[in-house]
């Protein structure tokens, strides 16, 4: 049935379509609706387990435990909570635990601007945890796509045996669109569990899931390999190649050719919805798989255009990645402080296209607070 559905609700619906049966979370705007909807579902369906944890650290670790025990598990949070989850995400990467983390971004750092939309957590997804790892992340720009990508995220998590991040933002999460998710759900394909749950191992070969480097095969299997660089290299590249192979299957992006245009505009998430009217003048490219970066795809497309502009609600995090991958200058239009609007986009584009700086003019400090508000409460 076609129904007005919210982006955050679609997160849960998508997870359920992917076969999720465990959710742990902690309330944080603007992701709280995910927790609310999941708890409502759990109340009616006892086979779906729900935990409101004491903090995001616990919820991240709980979904890891649930996944090891055999459940498809996910959690949802926003920037500050996502920071707390980083250690657990690194652990899940190391141990090889399929699970899905949803980050409905707001303006940071720290508590920042609850709950204005932001896209400042791109690099946190890639580099947030300690050490080197190769995360996979997707970023939808609508309700139906949130649903579909949630299924994709679970599938990629199973195939790569690693945590996968679904990025969202305040606007995508709180977007209400009329969609028929039941019908969409019929079109998705679901990858079943890829790791045997705890206690269902090969006879006589109990596994030891450790965050510390361990020998996996051979006579020393089960012994720590904490001083063996060769073992590290073997395991690191095995994981990296596995992740790259899976990511290749989900090289998702959207691109509208505009052969008259000389400029390629890259934007993603809610910014791509806001900037949609630019399609008449510019060629638009929207990466859906954010990590690993779509370097080859962007290079093939960008070759046709003279200039590249990245419009994003952060200080050029994706632009940095594009610049590094293409070795070409990328102009930036940062939409900071939650100001995501077509006016801000046009203003920024006009500024950088005319050779101006990416930095917007800094608004003057209010001289007198009372002048701004008669009540003096700004």
């Amino acid at each position, binding site marked *: 049935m076609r129904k007005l559905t919210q982006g955050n609700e679609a997160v849960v619906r998508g997870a359920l379509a992917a076969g999720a049966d465990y959710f742990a979370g902690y309330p944080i705007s603007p992701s709280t609706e995910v927790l609310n909807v999941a708890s409502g579902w759990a109340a009616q369906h006892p086979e779906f387990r729900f*935990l409101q944890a004491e903090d995001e*650290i616990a919820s991240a*670790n709980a979904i*890891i435990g649930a996944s090891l025990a055999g*459940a498809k598990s996910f959690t949802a949070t926003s920037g500050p909570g996502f920071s707390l989850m980083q*250690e657990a995400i690194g652990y899940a990467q190391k141990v090889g635990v399929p699970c899905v983390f949803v980050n409905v971004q707001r303006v940071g750092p720290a508590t920042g601007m609850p709950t204005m939309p932001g896209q400042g957590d791109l690099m946190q997804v890639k580099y947030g945890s300690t050490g080197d790892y190769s995360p996979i992340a997707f970023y939808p720009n609508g309700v139906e796509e949130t649903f579909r990508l949630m299924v994709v995220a679970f599938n990629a998590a199973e195939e790569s045996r690693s945590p996968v991040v679904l990025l969202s933002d305040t606007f995508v999460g709180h977007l209400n669109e009329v969609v028929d998710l039941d019908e969409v759900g019929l079109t998705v394909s679901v990858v079943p569990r890829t790791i045997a749950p705890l*206690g269902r191992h090969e006879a006589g070969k109990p596994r030891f*899931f450790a965050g*510390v480097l361990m020998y996996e095969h051979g006579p020393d299997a089960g012994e720590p390999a904490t001083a063996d660089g060769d073992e590290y290299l073997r395991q690191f590249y095995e994981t990296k190649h596995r992740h790259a192979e899976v990511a290749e299957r989900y090289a998702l992006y959207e691109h509208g050719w505009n052969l008259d245009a000389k400029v390629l505009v890259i934007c993603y998430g809610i910014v791509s919805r806001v900037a949609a009217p630019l399609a008449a003048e510019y060629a638009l490219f929207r990466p859906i798989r954010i990590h690993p970066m779509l370097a080859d795809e962007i290079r093939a497309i960008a070759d046709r255009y003279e200039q590249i502009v990245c419009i994003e609600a952060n200080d050029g995090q994706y632009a940095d990645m594009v610049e590094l991958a293409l070795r070409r200058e990328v102009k930036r239009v940062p939409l900071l402080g939650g100001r995501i609007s077509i006016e801000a986009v046009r203003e920024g584009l006009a500024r950088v296209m005319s050779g101006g700086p990416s930095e917007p003019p800094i608004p003057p400090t209010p001289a007198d607070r009372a002048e701004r508000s008669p009540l003096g409460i700004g």
Partner: protein
Amino acid sequence: MAELTTLESPGLDFKRRLKVDLFPTIWCPGCGIGTIMIQLAMVLEEMGLDESNTILVTGIGCTGRMGSYMKHESVYTLHGRTLPVAEAIKTVRPEMNVIVVSGDGDTASIGGNHLIHTVRRNARLTVLCNNNEIYGLTGGQTGPTTPTATKTLSSPGGNPNSPINLQGLIRSSSHAMYAKTTVYHQLHMRNVIREAIEHDGFSFVDITSQCIENNGRRIGFASANEMLTFYRKTYKRAPKGARQLAPFEIGVLYPDGHPSAGDGAAASTQKESTGTAAAGRAAPASAPVRERAPVSDEEKARRRAESQKRLALMSRLDPAVKLDVATGKISLADALRAAGIDPDAAP
């Protein structure tokens, strides 16, 4: 007499629970963790719990390595995160026994918040806390349970703070079981670990153990033996009916309303011999409504006998068939019939 019982018990075959080919362990000579591991292995063996129904969750620190030496599926979690992981495993697979083994720093310091809330939610876990009053793996820094005035690497002038009250923290819940024991009192330890696993609710075993290398020597003990002798001389069994354990008392505290927490009637001969304190008075009339009825001692004995019988029958099956039974592909009765074993015949 008690020792004699031990020798005859099936727990003696505990070595098959351990990966003896990985020995010697990484633990320092004189460390108390090995003792805890052996007692745990004995209890698992006695109770007929095996790798198909028992999962170990361990934390960072010396104690955390126990998982790698036991033939059980185990999760070696991040520092302090044993409880959320264990709780989720238990939620998803309620039929599994989930045993958490971690040190005092892991449980009470970095994982302290999780401890408070896991107790509050009454997760049906068994926590074995190797309480050596020090951060041993990093060389001997003050831990959450380090007694006041103890000199450590990070408190050369003596620990200025008082140790955390684990007993009070666990007992703040109306359904959690708290037990205190030491590495010296091995039989007592074994019995309380067993009672903790049998307890239907959150159970916490606080095991005082010696870290001779990074704590004991610094505070004046010459050897691990001296520390054990100290435990022998100072730790006493709590008086019968105690509702709280005084410092240097060992015993078990059940929640009010639990059959074993009554007027001592539930204190079986086994408990008599092991010094378990039957805590508290009879349940008040307004006892809080419990989710599940507490398990009586008779019921525990029946379950124990059943699991031992099942184990004996399972041991006669082919390993491949055994896995099929463990994974629920075929029932035990069918497997026995196929193998031509009479399930009612004495093992």
